[in-house]
């Protein structure tokens, strides 16, 4: 695709903006659908936007114990999520900054965000922060291999680890549903649940100290700091869904920059993400949250799926 720095920059900015603006909507959507499942009215779609606005207005209260690390944490987390969005192909069958790197770089960026936030969470000396950080890193440590294996399956079957290239090739090849793809997709989906802090791994709605992971980690944050964290998390969730959609059912992805192609692929993307959101909602409302020490088993399942996918594909 294009290599002209300016257009690349614009493309990247546009995609990042897109993610930033749409991510809260996804959260709202999921909330709404969950409510619908529970035969409740539920908040408006736009509720997350209002929440963000509220948080951004509030004055951030910071612990007297905390240091600059506490402040840096959310910002690095946010930045890493935003940069990550420029590495995945969304509407177009190419990622804005795909020259920078592929699957591994993406995973690395997500790890960076986790690292930053977990470190910052330990800065206040609050036991909850520690607990959250510890648990977040535990889950992450187990989720990352699964994620990598799932992505490798896709990458190796296409013969490239570069996401843009990967989507292009799969798009050319058309969707061939190989069993290994299904397994990999399943693994990726489980990782998505973990990374997005969804039931059964975590419960974004709870504030009961002993069960929470992500929420415990950010317990000490408030105001704009908290807003950044929440926003970034939403972006991450959307990012994962886009990734899933792009890698495993590249239907209607725009391989050329023409209005109709773009229109089609945007619609297709929205549809896919809606489907995934529905899936998440289904899982969330039909499952109970797992005991924390059962989570590793779930991750092991994901890891197993990923490995199996790879083996099936290449053995």
């Amino acid at each position, binding site marked *: 695709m294009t290599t002209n720095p300016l257009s690349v920059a614009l493309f990247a900015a546009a995609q990042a903006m897109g993610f930033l603006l749409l991510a809260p909507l996804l959260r709202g959507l999921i909330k709404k659908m969950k409510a619908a499942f529970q035969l409740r009215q539920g908040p408006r779609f736009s509720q997350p936007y209002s929440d963000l606005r509220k948080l951004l207005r509030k004055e951030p209260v910071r612990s007297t114990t905390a240091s600059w*690390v506490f402040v840096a944490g959310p910002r690095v987390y946010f930045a890493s999520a*935003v940069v990550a969005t420029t590495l995945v192909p969304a509407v177009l069958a190419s990622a804005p900054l795909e020259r920078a*790197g592929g699957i591994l770089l993406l995973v690395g960026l997500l790890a960076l965000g986790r690292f930053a936030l977990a470190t910052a969470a330990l800065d206040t*000396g609050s036991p909850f922060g520690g607990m959250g950080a510890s648990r977040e890193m535990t889950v992450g440590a187990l989720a990352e291999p699964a994620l990598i294996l799932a992505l490798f399956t896709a990458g190796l079957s296409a013969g490239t*680890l570069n996401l843009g290239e990967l989507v292009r090739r799969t798009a050319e090849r058309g969707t061939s549903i190989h069993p290994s793809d299904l397994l990999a997709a399943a693994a990726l989906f489980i990782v998505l649940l973990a990374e997005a802090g969804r039931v059964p791994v975590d419960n974004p709605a709870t504030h009961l100290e002993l069960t929470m992971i992500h929420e415990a980690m950010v317990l000490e944050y408030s105001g704009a700091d908290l807003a950044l964290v929440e926003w970034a998390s939403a972006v991450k969730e959307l990012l994962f869904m886009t990734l899933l959609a792009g890698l495993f059912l590249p239907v209607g992805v725009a391989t050329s920059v023409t209005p109709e192609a773009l229109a089609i692929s945007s619609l297709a993307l929205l549809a896919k993400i809606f489907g995934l959101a529905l899936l998440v909602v289904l899982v969330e409302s039909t499952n109970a949250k797992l005991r924390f020490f059962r989570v590793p088993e779930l991750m092991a399942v994901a*890891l197993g799926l990923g490995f199996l996918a790879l083996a099936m594909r*290449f053995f």
Partner: protein
Amino acid sequence: MSEESLLPLGLALHATGVALALVLRRQPAACRWVAFVASLCGSLTSFALGASVLASGRPVRGVLFANTAAGLSVGYTVDPLSAWFLVTLAVLAAPLALYSVGYLAHAIPPGRTAFVGMAWNVLLLSVEMVFAADGVLGFLVAWELMSLATAALVATDHESRPSRRSAYLFLVMSHLGTGCLVAGFFLLAQAGGSLAFADLLGGSASPGALRGLVFVLFLVGFGVKAGMVPLHIWLPEAHPAAPSNVSALMSGGLINAGLYGLVRVGAGGLGRPDPHWGMAVLLLGSVSAVLGVLYALGETDLKRLLAFSTIENGGIALMAFGAGMMGLAAGHPGTAALGVVAGLYHVLNHAAFKGLLFLGAGGVVASTGTRRIEELGGLVHRMPRTAGLFLLGSAAIAGLPLLNGFASEWLVFQALLRGFFSAERLTRIVLPLGGALLALTSALAAACFVKAFALTFLARPRSRAAAEARESPALLLVPQAFLALACVGLGLFPGLVVRVLGGVAAALPGIGPKPALAGGLAGVSVGVPAFDQLSPFVLVPAALVALGLAAAIGFMTARERRRAPTWGCGGELTAEAEYTATAFAKPLVTVFRDIYRPTREVSTVETAPYFASEVRYRSQIGAPFERLVYEPAARAVLAAAGRLRIIQAGSLHAYLAYVLVLGVMLLWWLGGLP
């Protein structure tokens, strides 16, 4: 100044350091400066040599000394591979020398300054010689000297039992290794009769059982130094016991000696390797990596934690080499080159960030007097610069993007995956398994170093010493800053490093030119057609913009900020309530309990029924290898020796009986002869 004279010059500088340290042993301050400035110059010289060889690609040869009586002469050859390791060593040793000047001042009793200075220079001299030796005997001399000097340095504080013990353990293990090397080299030379590496490791060894045996001997001999599980047991003991500057050198510089040897013999040195060799190295590497990081995670002693992570990183390099060897065995020089490049890159990176971390830890230990993470905390306020540098080191070693750890681990992944298309069934299972384990390793490493940094530097101090810590002096900080810079630079421009390393790999026997990876300022690209590429600095503007955005959001929206004590569920929150390192690692320790085999004991003191006034919790992580392999072996040997005592029971009659029996036996044998 000609290239040939550079190595002798460097060694001579170290030797002068030894001599001057001996002369000035009565004035510690002067002694420090002289010894370590000499070592600094020596390192710079060897850096210059290495750099020029890497630039030109032409090996440099020369003779060092000859023992006329035995008719042995010791020469040296610095080919690109040696040059790479020399450069790696220098990158670490140069800042270390500076650091040592400041560090030794208040880390060791002045009476031992001269000793440390001398041993230090001997050590560097011998390691440089290990990398440069061009023949078996020179190599063995250097290898032995290296072990002895290291043991001496570990035993610097010989009054304390641990350092004595670990020095001895190190000596024993490295001697086992040396024994294997001697056997291996001479068996290898048996065919040709020449002891020159050019003949031995030129890839001319003919396949066969003997070659297999030789490789196993080398694997053990070099594996000991590389800290390869299960030969690693000395490492977590010896590295922490030594003064921190020595620990840094051992972790960042000495294990490289083992890795160097393995590359020499593995990457075509013994001819095209058997497929099993590469697989063995890969698997041993994976095991080392995972176990290393797991034990590091479970560790609450800062320096031991770093030592275990050294085992991990050695393992990662081994994985890369293993993948390379498998590629070589399968007849894919491209993959082989990729593996070697990845491994060598990681070696350099490890030298940079592990050095940085050990120096930081050294500063902490020097100013707080404790290595136990549980007794630290809150140092970010007292030692902000150290904290910042340590954080950067942690991020680098955790393999986070834009830093060097990520770049090399990225290459290791590539090596593992490239082997994929070209390999037969078994390999196709082993390689992705390796990939999964590598992913697990780096994820665990992230967890481990979140703990290492956050619980050491953040929150409230958990001990008086930590509360009264003060920032290290500039002499300690500048070297760390340099290494931090190296971490960033190596992370941002992998392409340049890879271009250099491509030359190194191409110079190896059996690999030859045409490695399947291209590198340049733009970055690295692997495989044709483009399999994957990495150019981190493309990401830099994006990252800056995003950070700016985040900062702006935070900055513009909030009018004023408020400071308040951390919420303590209504109560006053004290340092005791903080999450400890043990607690932080607990979930993962529980998840991997089958590996850790932790022993815990919980004792409750109850003042009244159901009212515990205090609860004590101890948790110990088992050391399976020591318990199951080494201790029984040692016991068996000593028991056997004890039983043999009977030979010399003091009875003259018995002694005469020996002679009689020998005589009778020999006569009987003679009578049987025709």
